[in-house]
């Protein structure tokens, strides 16, 4: 079965520190996505990627970078973490050839103190 795996599942970081969230997919999908989920906002798109080597800005990219070194892996990087980035982060993969269906990881709960 298709799988999207995120690590770590939980992370506590200090303000100003660097945080890297990792995502691996075994779906062989071209597209990968990073969302954050906050109460009252639902899911918001941070960055996405069309394939290895590509990253694109989503709706709320400020304060985040992304890296797609391979088809399988997509990372979200917070160079200088702030308390406002405390949230639950979800990675997803999908392929337009499969229609509009996204496959999500289990999420990473990030607390920035």
């Amino acid at each position, binding site marked *: 079965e298709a799988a*999207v795996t995120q690590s770590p599942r939980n992370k506590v970081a200090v303000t100003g520190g660097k945080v890297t969230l990792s995502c691996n997919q075994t779906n062989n999908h071209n*597209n990968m*996505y990073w969302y954050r989920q906050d109460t*009252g*906002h*639902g*899911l918001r*798109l941070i960055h*996405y990627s*069309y394939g290895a080597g590509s990253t*694109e800005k989503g709706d709320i990219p400020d304060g985040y970078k992304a890296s797609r070194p391979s088809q399988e892996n997509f990372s979200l990087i917070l160079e200088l973490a702030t308390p406002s980035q405390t949230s639950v982060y*979800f990675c*997803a993969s*999908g392929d*337009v050839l499969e*229609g*509009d*269906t*996204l*496959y*999500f*990881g*289990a*999420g990473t709960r990030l607390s920035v103190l």
Partner: protein
Amino acid sequence: TQTVSQSDAHVTVFEGDSVELRCNYSYGGSIYLSWYIQHHGRGLQFLLKYYSGNPVVQGVNGFEAEFSKSDSSFHLRKASVHWSDSAVYFCAVSQNTGYQNFYFGKGTSLTVIP
């Protein structure tokens, strides 16, 4: 810009009851409509989607949804809920613009009392 509105933040029913979770949207162009379910502490899982054809689509675990162009709606229904259906349900609108451009509603939390 697409918008998705889920009018009920919380819905509580008893096991065996029927339920309808409401979703209204605005869009420009050709879109997919879909529903996802999120159990506590988990990621979102696909339930069902509509693109064209029969306006009533069937999903997993007895869920179905009906598209209405006149009402701009895509409501999710289940005839008889089980306690394990307790979760947050997200309606989404998407377009294939090279990448899958999803807009999610804020979710409806369904609680099923055994």
